[in-house]
Each structure stands twice: as structure tokens, then as C-alpha cells.
């Protein structure tokens, strides 16, 4: 089983140097479900990264699509002698390839927005917590303001403003999500800040920047990482919803959400595969991320540990 082998690689060595990372890996590996999630997620990630080499067709290249091969059922061989294992949509787009490329977009949107939002949010949150006072009040009022507003509405507005496009979706999601990181970072940093090692660092006259980023930040990472995994999943779902509502990525370069949305209109006409398979892919992805994130939360949450 994967779990045991990972444990034996990282955690099992007695007397070996026990770094926090190894300890963490060992604890993580204790949950089979989470390891399964990670394995699935890695596979999905690999598929997404190598989609251009793996996919039988480039679904974004209009010249490669043939409308005459449109709406083929799964495992039909089209006019060009090519077999569409998951069928095609009305444009003659091979669903298998479209899902691979769609994963790529969805994951990019999810991870890209999470990373950017992380950087922006964590920095502001740490700064707010460390300096307190007016800085804190200003940043946190803004965070409150934003959190008090449903993400989907903010995203809708922003996208309506910026127009479609993958980067715009990422931007919109960053604008929507940074506040979560800021709040989490601040909360964690406030706890950490009251720990005596921060005072010790101040006592040692270390520069403020060093205290914030070398001492505080690493200790605030666990909750941030948990938030990040959760936010990747929710960003992917949000992007799907936005695409469903008609704002989101361009039609010619569909994400999973857009594929589902396209296929949604065919559900009643019996052409289930256009929406079904992308739906399954989306589901598996989000569930895998959540499984990992969920367990990460258990492992990284110090309160549950002691």
C-alpha cells in the first residue's frame, strides 16, 4: 500500500534526523484516503501538464476540429478515421482531449489564483498583525468589507468589468480570495506574535523584515497552506460556476466548467457525454484536492494534535 511505503521512506527511520517536514509527511501518510487523494491529484496534475503531448487532438486549434464529426457518441470512429473514446461535442471536439486541456485551464486558474492570492493576502495579513494599530485597522476593515460580500457577486462584477479570458478569471479570483489569506495570516500571526520567540527576536534587535518573514511567516504557514488547498478547490468550482453563468474563459478554450456548461444544454437531448465526463473530471479533481486539504488541516492543526 502506498501509505505504508511512504511512511517507511520518510518517517520510519528510528534515530534518523526528525525534521518537521518528515514528521509531517509521516503523519500525512497515516490517512489512506488522503494519500489516495494525493496520488489522484498528482495524476491529474501530470495529465494537465502534459496534455499537449498526451491528448490525441488539440481541442483549442479550430483547424483540427471537424464539425462533421460533431456529436459523436463515445467510442465512435469519426470521418477522419479517428476514434473518439469519450465522444465529441457539437464542434467535433474530442471530449477526451478537451477534458485534458480543460483540466489544464481549471488547474491553472485554481493554482494560479491561489498562489497570487496567497502572496498578496499573506503579506498584508502579516503586516497587519505585526504592526497593528492603524495599519491593521485599515487592512482589516478592507478585508471585512470584502469578506462581507459574496465572492460570486464580486467575481461576476469583476469579470463583467474585465471581460473574459483566463488571466482575467485568475485576476478576479485573486481579488475575491486574497482576503481569506489575509484574515488567516493575520489570525495566525497574532497568535504567533504573542509567542515569546518573537519577543526574543526583538530582544536580539533583529530587523523587522527578518522577524516578519523569517520568523513569523514560516510559523503561520500551516493554516495558510490549508486555506490554500481549500481555495484551489473553491477557485476551480467558482471558475466553473462563472463559466456556467456565461462569464469566464473563452469558449474556444474551454475549462472543465465551460465544458459542463456547454454540455448542460445537451443533457435533455440525451447527449449526456458532453457534460457528464467533464463533470466527473471536475468532481474527481475537486474531491481529490479537498481530501488532501482536509487531511492537511488535521495534520497541520496544532490544536487537534496536542
Amino acid at each position, binding site marked *: 500500500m502506498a501509505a505504508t511505503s511512504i511512511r517507511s521512506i520518510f518517517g520510519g527511520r528510528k534515530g534518523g534526523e526528525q525534521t518537521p517536514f518528515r514528521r509531517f509527511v509521516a503523519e500525512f501518510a497515516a490517512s489512506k484516503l488522503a494519500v489516495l487523494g494525493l496520488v489522484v491529484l498528482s495524476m491529474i496534475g501530470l495529465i494537465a501538464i502534459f496534455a499537449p503531448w498526451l491528448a490525441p487532438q488539440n481541442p483549442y486549434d479550430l483547424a483540427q476540429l471537424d464539425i462533421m464529426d460533431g456529436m459523436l457518441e463515445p467510442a465512435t470512429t469519426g470521418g477522419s478515421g479517428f476514434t473518439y473514446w469519450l465522444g465529441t461535442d457539437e464542434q467535433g471536439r474530442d471530449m477526451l482531449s478537451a477534458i485534458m486541456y480543460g483540466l489544464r485551464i481549471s488547474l491553472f486558474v485554481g493554482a494560479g489564483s491561489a498562489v497570487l492570492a496567497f502572496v498578496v493576502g499573506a503579506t498584508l495579513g502579516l503586516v497587519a498583525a505585526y504592526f497593528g494599530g492603524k495599519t491593521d485597522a485599515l487592512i482589516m476593515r478592507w478585508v471585512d*468589507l470584502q469578506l462581507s460580500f*459574496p465572492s460570486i457577486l464580486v467575481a461576476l*462584477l469583476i469579470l463583467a*468589468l474585465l471581460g473574459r479570458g483566463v488571466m482575467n478569471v485568475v485576476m478576479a479570483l485573486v481579488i475575491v480570495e486574497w482576503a481569506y489569506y489575509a484574515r488567516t495570516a493575520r489570525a495566525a500571526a497574532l497568535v504567533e506574535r504573542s509567542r515569546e520567540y518573537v519577543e526574543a527576536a526583538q530582544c536580539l534587535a533583529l530587523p523587522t523584515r527578518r522577524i516578519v518573514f523569517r520568523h513569523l511567516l514560516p510559523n503561520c504557514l500551516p493554516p495558510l497552506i490549508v486555506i490554500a488547498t481549500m481555495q484551489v478547490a473553491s477557485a476551480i468550482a467558482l471558475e466553473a460556476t462563472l463559466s456556467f*453563468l456565461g462569464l469566464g474563459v473563452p469558449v474556444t478554450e474551454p475549462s472543465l466548467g465551460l465544458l459542463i*456548461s456547454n454540455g448542460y444544454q445537451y443533457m435533455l437531448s440525451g447527449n449526456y457525454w458532453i457534460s457528464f465526463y467533464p463533470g466527473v473530471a471536475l468532481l474527481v479533481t475537486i*474531491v481529490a484536492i479537498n481530501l488532501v486539504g482536509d487531511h492537511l488541516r488535521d495534520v497541520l492543526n496544532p490544536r487537534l494534535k496536542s
Partner: protein
Amino acid sequence: MVSYLLNRILQAGLVMLVMSAIVFLGVFAIGNPVDILISPQATALQREEAIRALGLDLPVWHQYLNFLSNLLHGDLGRSFVFNVPALQLILERMPATLELAIAATLLALVAGIPLGLYAGLAPKSPVSSSIMAGSILGFSLPSFWVGIVLIMLFSVHLGWLPSSGRGDTAVWLGVRWSFLTVDGLAHMAMPVLNLALFQISMVIRLTRAGVREVILSDYVKFARAKGLRESRIIFVHILKNILIPVITVVGLNLGTVIAFAVVTETIFSWPGMGKLIIDSINILDRPVIVAYLMLMVLMFVIINLLVDLIYSVLDPRVRLGAR
């Protein structure tokens, strides 16, 4: 207490002001309503007339100031599409959305707390594992997708439930409600479930996490040491403690539920505010969008305040004003 309320109201006012500016500018930048609303066959003259009549010829800041001064008189503008006060338009549709959102929230509590309680008390049992796995699923499924599947299953294939719309309503307090009629309830079932799914998962998780934490606390152990019956420990000592965070979070989320009703209402043709806002965005019915967003901000402010108040009632440790 009074100073606390005053403080909150002042803050809320400030938030509303800032939001109104952002919202106004944001909606302004999306597009020109005249471009889409007016028939292109209109002559330039007709077009200009329409623009002037709607006050769209003025510079943005001027429009904003007009908007603000109207706002002070409680006027949020008239809908371009329906030519009635935007506020009225929204308020007409609000009960339908609130009905949905509140029903979903209640469902989440009613279904989520017992499940979470069980999962927390018997963490090792297979039933608990399935509850938790199910809750991850509930977290993960995009709500529009669930909506489609529900319709496919319960309306089209099984024919048990009506696919969309609000069904029969009955009037109570001068407002039409679905939950008062059998047909209305049947129509509510799927949208409510759709909207509640995420909440149920969240409540399960919050409850479970709460139980796991509280059950280890000294005061639960002390309650045992006092010789209390297990039922009293669970339903008084543990439950009362976890209800506080659960109700707080669920309460704060009510706003998000209302916002996500946009999706549910679209799928189930539920005649609420959410559907109105999507249509309004599509057709750039600016006053309605702005009014809706302002109303949402107001609603959030009120919900936050209420949640704080409830929180302070539930949790004796919190006393307002002494924070």
C-alpha cells in the same frame, strides 16, 4: 451597549458609502446600458434623447452624486427594463429568495448538526467515515451541476418533483410564500436541497470538529466526574458549546447563501432576486444592479450585527461593548 450599536451603525454607514462608490463605478465601467437596451434602429436623435432621459449623459461623478442624493431620499433609481423603482422590484422578489435561503439554512442545521454530532462522538465508526466522505462531496460539487442532476433525476426521470418555478403560494403578512402550500413545498424541495448542500457539509464539519474539541475539554471530563448522565453531557454540555460557533458561522453564511441563490434560482427558475440580478447584469439594468448590491451590503451588515447579537446571547463570555 448603546455605544456599541452606535459604533456598528456608523461603521455600517461607512461601509455602505464605500461600497456604493465601488459598485457604482464598477457597474458604470461594465458597459453602456443604452447600447444594449435601445433598438439600434433608433435614430441618433432618439438615442440621445433616451440617454438624456436616463441621466446617462452626465459625467460619472455627477451621476454618482445624483445617485447619492437620491439615495438619501430612499430612492435607488428606476429599473430601465421595468420602469419601476429598482428597490420595489427587488423587494418584490426578496421574499422568494429569503424563503429559499432560510429554508436551506434551517435544513443545513437540522440535517447537519445530528450528523456532525454522531461523527464527532463515534469518530471511528464506518458510518462516521461515510458521513465525512459525504461531506467532502457536498463541499466539492459545484452547485449548478448538482442542480442539473437533481432536475434530471427527480423531475425528468422519476417525475416526483416539479422541475422549476415556485408553485402555488399563499399570502401571509401580505407576502406570498411557497412553504404554506403543499405544491409550494414540492417546488421548494430541490432548490432548497441544492442550496443547502454546501451548508450541510459545512455544518457537519463544524459540528464534528467542535465535538472533537469539546469532548476533550476539562469541563466535559468534570461533568463526567460529577456523575452526570451521558445524554445530559452530550445534549447540554457539548451541544450548547458547539452551537455557538455553528450558529455563528451559519448565520454569517446566510449572506453567501443568498448570493449563491443566483445560481440555484437560475437553474430552477425561482423568481427571486438572484435571477433578477443575473438578468439585470445581462441587460445592464444599472439601477437594479446597484440597488441589489447596495441591498446586499445592507443585508450583510444587518446579518453580521444580528449574528453578533445572537452570539453574545449564546455565549455569556462575550459582552458587547466590552470587547
